[in-house]
Each structure stands twice: as C-alpha cells, then as structure tokens.
C-alpha cells in the first residue's frame, strides 16, 4: 500500500515536471512582454517585471494589426468554404460509392501530404496571371484547394459511421440525393463541422509558406508580419514576445475552449483515427 503511495507521488511529480517544461516558453514570453524596455536584458530573463508595463503590447499591436485583420479576413471565409465543400465530398464518397471512388479518394488524399514547394512556382505564375497575386481572395482560394483533402477525409470518415439504414428509410419515402443530405446527414454533422472548423482555422491562421510567397506588404497575414517584426534587429525582445503571444492567442483561445475537437482533427489528419 505504501509502495503504491510512493509510486503515485513519483507519477505526479514526473507529470508536473513535464507540465512545467511545456509551459516554460509561455512563462518567459509572457513575463518578457510585460517588461519595460529598461528591464529587458540578457541576465535578467527569468525575473518577474518589477511593474507591469503594457507599452510593448501597444507597439506590437501597432505593427501586427494589419496582419491580424488580414488573417481574419482570410481564415474565416476559407474555413467556411472548405467545410461546406468537404461535407458534400464526404457525403458523396461515403454514402454513394461508385466504381473507382476509393482510388479517387486516395489520389485526393495524397494532396495533403505533398511538400507545397513542389507546386509553388506554377501557383505563383497562375495567381499572377488571373490577377489574384497579393490579394486576400487569392489566398482564400489557395487555402480552400489545399484544405480540400483533409476536409473531405474528416467528413467521409465521420459519415462512414452513420448507418446506411438511416438513409434507407428516407430513400423508401422517395427522398432524393440532396434531400437525404439536408434532412438526415446535415443535422448529424455538427461535430464534424466543429472539428474541421477548428482544424482549418488553425491551419490557415498559422500558415506561412503560401502567405510569404503570394503576398507583399500591406496584404500580409499575421505570421509573415510577426516574422518581419522579429527579423528586424532593432526591435526589442519584449515587443517580439508580445507580438508572438498576440499572434498565437486566437488559435490558443479556440484550443482552450474546444480542445477536444482540435485533438479529433489532429488524429483524423493521420488518416487512421
């Protein structure tokens, strides 16, 4: 009994050490962002600020606000469109299989694993020639297309779990393809929409490669703006850390409140799940 007690104590101790390790960067970023310039120095990194100073947050916001706005204008429509198209695709692939539908699905899925560098040159040329280079609609289009495979995957696997018998009853009543989708499938799809919504929003918000290639200031999303902020040597560390937290906050808040669904997206993205 006492051995069990000791074991449990060690278990919790190890868990707490790891938890502290994972939180350590957050702690440092947070306390640094709250320091005035005079207190930011190499030797005192771990010390708490003597007084809370929000000026670095103000400076960071000034530099990042156009990027934050662009990222919102980008992530919200991209997420909505990708979810709708994904739901339709998933429905077709799970409930109305046709010869070759599985092979098609596999070819579709491969699209989410390619290194995007291998499509970047043509993408840039095409975006430029159709007038969507350096524009938010252009980036929305790009994120929708390259987000399609995972959205289709999540909805398809979700719909596979809905028994075919449910559709059968409606079919006997003479309900058609879209009628069944609207009346039976869609009302059951809320969890899948939450999963893909969170996943896609996080992906688009955090994305860097497309954003850096296809936009120039002032149309750059927040991650490019943050990179530019920290890339300039004259910017103080407290401003950089405030910027980093600010850029991470939207996805972090979503994670804190809907973490369960985020993890489901995470697991679904590894194909088996």
């Amino acid at each position: 009994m006492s051995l069990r007690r000791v074991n449990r104590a060690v278990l919790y101790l190890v868990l707490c050490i790891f938890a502290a390790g994972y939180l350590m960067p957050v702690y440092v970023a947070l306390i640094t962002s709250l320091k005035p310039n005079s207190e930011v120095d190499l030797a005192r990194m771990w010390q708490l600020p003597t007084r809370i100073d929000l000026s670095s947050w103000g400076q960071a916001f000034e530099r990042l606000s156009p990027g934050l706005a662009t990222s919102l204008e980008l992530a919200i429509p991209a997420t909505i469109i990708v979810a709708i198209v994904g739901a339709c695709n998933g429905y077709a692939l799970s409930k109305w299989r046709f010869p070759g539908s599985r092979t098609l699905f596999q070819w579709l899925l491969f699209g989410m694993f390619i290194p995007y560098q291998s499509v970047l040159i043509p993408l840039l040329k095409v975006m430029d020639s159709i007038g969507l280079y350096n524009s938010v609609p252009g980036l929305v289009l790009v994120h929708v297309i390259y987000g399609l495979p995972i959205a289709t995957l999540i909805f398809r696997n979700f719909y596979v779990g809905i028994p075919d018998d449910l559709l059968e009853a409606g079919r006997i009543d003479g309900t058609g393809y879209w009628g069944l989708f609207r009346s039976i499938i869609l009302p059951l799809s809320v969890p899948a929409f939450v999963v893909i919504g969170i996943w896609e929003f996080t992906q688009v918000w955090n994305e860097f490669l497309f954003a850096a290639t296809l936009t120039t200031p002032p149309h750059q999303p927040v991650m490019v703006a943050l990179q530019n902020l920290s890339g300039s040597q004259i910017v103080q560390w407290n401003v950089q850390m405030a910027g980093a937290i600010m850029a991470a906050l939207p996805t972090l808040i979503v994670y804190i409140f809907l973490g369960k669904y985020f993890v489901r997206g995470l697991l679904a993205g590894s194909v088996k799940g």
Partner: protein
Amino acid sequence: MAMQPAEMTITQPRRARKPWTWERVYPILTLLPSIIAIAVFVYGFIVWTGVVSFTKWNTLVPDLSWNGFANYRAIFQDFRFQSDLRNLLFFTVLFVLVSMIIGLFLAVLVDQKIRLEGLFRSLFIFPMAIAFIVTGVVWQWLLNPSTGVNLILKALGLTHLPKWYVDITIVPSIPWGHIKFGLPLALLAVIIAAVWQMSGFAMALYLSGLRSIPDDLKEAAAVDGANAWTTFWRVILPQLNAVTVTVVIMLIHISMKTFDLIYAMTGPGAAFVTDMPSMDMFQTTFQGNHYAQGAAISIIMLLLLAIFIVPYLTYSLRGEKP
C-alpha cells in the same frame, strides 16, 4: 430488413445495368469541382514543376529550353544542398525518435487513471495549436546562448555552456562530397523546439492507441503473474505497433516539410548548418531567381516524401471495407 444491401447503394460495380438516374450522377457532379481543383493545383502543378526542373530557367526571365538533368547534377554537387540532405537526415531521425519516446512515455503516464487527466493532456498538446513561426520566435530567445536556458545551466554549475544554434561544430565530421558528414550541433536547438511543439501529437496518438487496448487483455497478463514492466513490453507495446507506424510516418512527414520553424528561429545558419531543402528551394527560387534549380530541389523533396506516404496511404485505406 427485406431489402438486400446491394440494392440500396451503388457500391457493386458488376451488377446488372441499373436505369440511368440523376442519383447516380450527383455524387460525381458533387466531386467534380474538387477533382478538377486537385487535378490542376496538385498533379498539374507537380508536372509543371517537374518540367521546369529540366529547363534552363535560372534567371528572372523564363527560359524553357531543355537542360536535361543539369539542374539535378548541379544541386547534388552543391555544398548547400548536400548540407540540406545531411541536416534533413539527422533532424528527422532525432526529432522522430525523441518525439516518439516522449509521446509514448507521457501517454503511459496519463493513462494511469490520474487526477486532472484532462488538464495534463491539454498542457502536453497545446503547443500543437501554436504556429511554427511563434515557436521559432520564442525559442530563438530561450536558446540564445547568452541568456535563457543557459542562465539556468550556469546556475546549475555547468561551465561549458552549449552554444545552441550558433554552434558550427559537426560531430563526427567525416568528409563526404563537399561537406562534412555528421550531426551539426546547431540542429539540436531546432530539434528541441520541434519536439516541444510536436511530442503532444505523438502522445495523443499513443493515448488513443492505449485506450483501444481491451482491459481484459491487460488483466489477463496480470493474472498470469507478469509484472507491470513485462506486461508493458510483452503485451501492451506489440498492440501499439500500428500506432507507432502512424506516429513515425506523420512525424517524418512534418519533419521533411519543416520550413517555418527554421525560417523564424535560425535561418540557413552559418555554413548552412541549420538549412533544409525547403528553405534552400524557397531562397534559390524566389531570392536567387534560379527557378529551374528550385524546381529540382522541390521534386527531390516530393520524391523523398512519396517514398513514405504512398505505401502508408495504400496500407491505411486497404484495411477498410470496400
């Protein structure tokens, strides 16, 4: 149910001809826009990039005349690309291995019917919700050799403090092509940041694997008198083989695409000690205007990834009912 399943859904290709109905066309019509988009933006563009990689387009002005394998020969003889391949190899092996071990370890701890399980789980996974750019910015400061983690190591009495990402040492430094083969120590800093961000992913996968092992299996082993350690190695771990395959493939996939983290944290590094093919491609193409060489690098990246992903996808989807 009186109806045969085969009559209900259009899954059986070899049945007697069915009357033509809209119901049979709708699924394909639904998928058509996505099929076209992926056909053009994924496969079409890959072919296009492939074609570019065989041309002489190494200036700002496109020159699509044939250049054979010259771009591939050039990159494979290039000091930078050779460094990339070395870095990618060491980064992938260490990042995958360490993330996997920490992930499995944490999953086992969390699976011990602990209190506050949800809190601990969330804490180990939250870095996944953060952008690699943010991770790079923060860890660049934490692993700055003159502050951060080194202050703690110094307080602990360490005299030889690591130089982290500014270290240019390569261990063991065996001459190979134009470069020295071995682990560039600067990569360790990037690996630490990447493990911080991604080990929660391994944990989540392993935890879902552990939860799907039936309890009676664990109990049966306990009745047999196996102690906890043997049970783990002989009973639990073999059950997790499929999960391990998934973890390894997904982490390899992430590792091979690593770009943002390096971009924000270290850049290519002195003598390219922290460079990656992704970074090389980006700079060669868009800053150096060597489009054809950039295309060749990206095709190599694609091939390296396909070696792992294509068999994995085939294997994952084959197990499903048709």
